């Protein structure tokens, strides 16, 4: 593994990620009416091509956001399909609407609800990081996917691989109190932009 950033330099970033994830859990709790807390957060520098074990054929529902500005990369939220159904239906119920609980596929309303989760979660995460570092970070509208984990993550890793050999992976897990729903949140950032970002912390 090629270390472009010394690991101790990641400590302030780790603290920042934990604070952002905490904010995300609070927002998710409010949005889905299900108590959600952060379970674990890992921050690591990885050789892009060494990420093989993470690229499985397991099915996940994803909200995918590209970030740009002072920090470049991708924020990807993964949910098991049954968890995604529960989140979407809980949000729709709060708005007096009903999803399609009988069908494994996601209808447009459910997709829209899940993209809203992506929107809020991304805003919490990205705004938290931008404010703490006095940086400007922009995020694209979220995009939806219901597919294999590998297929969801490889476009982000490939695009980053055009610029850099390694990426910083911030991998957080959140769950509801009953462990009914588990969220996996990946933030992959370009190591080149990260060095400048860390200096501002």
């Amino acid at each position, binding site marked *: 593994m090629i270390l472009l950033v010394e690991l101790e330099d990641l400590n302030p970033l780790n603290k920042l990620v934990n604070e952002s994830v905490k904010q995300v859990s609070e927002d998710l709790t409010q949005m889905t009416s299900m108590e959600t807390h952060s379970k674990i957060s890992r921050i690591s520098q990885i050789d892009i091509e060494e990420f093989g074990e993470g690229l*499985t054929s397991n099915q996940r529902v994803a909200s995918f956001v590209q970030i740009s500005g002072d920090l470049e990369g991708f924020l990807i939220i993964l949910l098991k399909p049954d968890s995604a159904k529960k989140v979407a239906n809980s949000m729709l119920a709060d708005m007096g609407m009903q999803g399609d609980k009988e069908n494994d596929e996601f209808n447009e309303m459910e997709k829209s609800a899940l993209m809203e989760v992506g929107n809020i979660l991304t805003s919490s995460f990205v705004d938290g990081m931008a404010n703490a570092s006095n940086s400007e970070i922009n995020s694209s509208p979220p995009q939806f996917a219901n597919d*294999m984990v590998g297929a969801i993550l490889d476009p982000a890793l490939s695009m980053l691989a055009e610029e850099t*050999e390694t990426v910083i992976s911030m991998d957080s897990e959140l769950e509801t109190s009953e462990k009914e729903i588990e969220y996996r949140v990946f933030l992959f950032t370009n190591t080149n932009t990260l060095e400048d970002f860390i200096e501002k912390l």
Partner: protein
Amino acid sequence: MSALEDSMENVGMGEYCIVKSGDNDPKGNCSNTDKLKIVGLGSCVGVAIFKPKENIMGLAHIMLPKKQGDGDKDKKAKYADKAIGILVDEMEELSNNSPKKVAKIAGGSDMFKVFKDGEKETVGQRNIKAVRKYLKEHGVKILGEHTGGESGRTIVADPKTQEVIVKSVSGEEEIL
């Protein structure tokens, strides 16, 4: 994925493998000489090149079209230009009895509409174009293709039958 497929060797991102059925000396990033798989292809492209008469297969998991700039840190099969050249050359080294080679390719989907600065095509679209171009340059005819779209793929490639099975997340299968 079946238990049999679970036990198959996976060719990871930027890796390649060349096997000859019945020969215990594979080349590249693998240790066995049986069927190989690539799990969860999104924008990446899996390229299988066969020498049909000799049960020789090369499989590469390509991430990007072409290397920009210098440097030698990259894995050999990360870029389409380099990966296809290596497969063709090393398959020839293994046996030059018959020059005929054919290819089957899968992947290059547009999972998300994201573009590199200055590019009008997604990384998946650029990968497919590059793979077709470099296979043609090396005189390798494409016999089967399952590319593009907006869905992921897992592939299983067999050096004996020269079949590539393409699977989607919903369990649909197509044999190339």
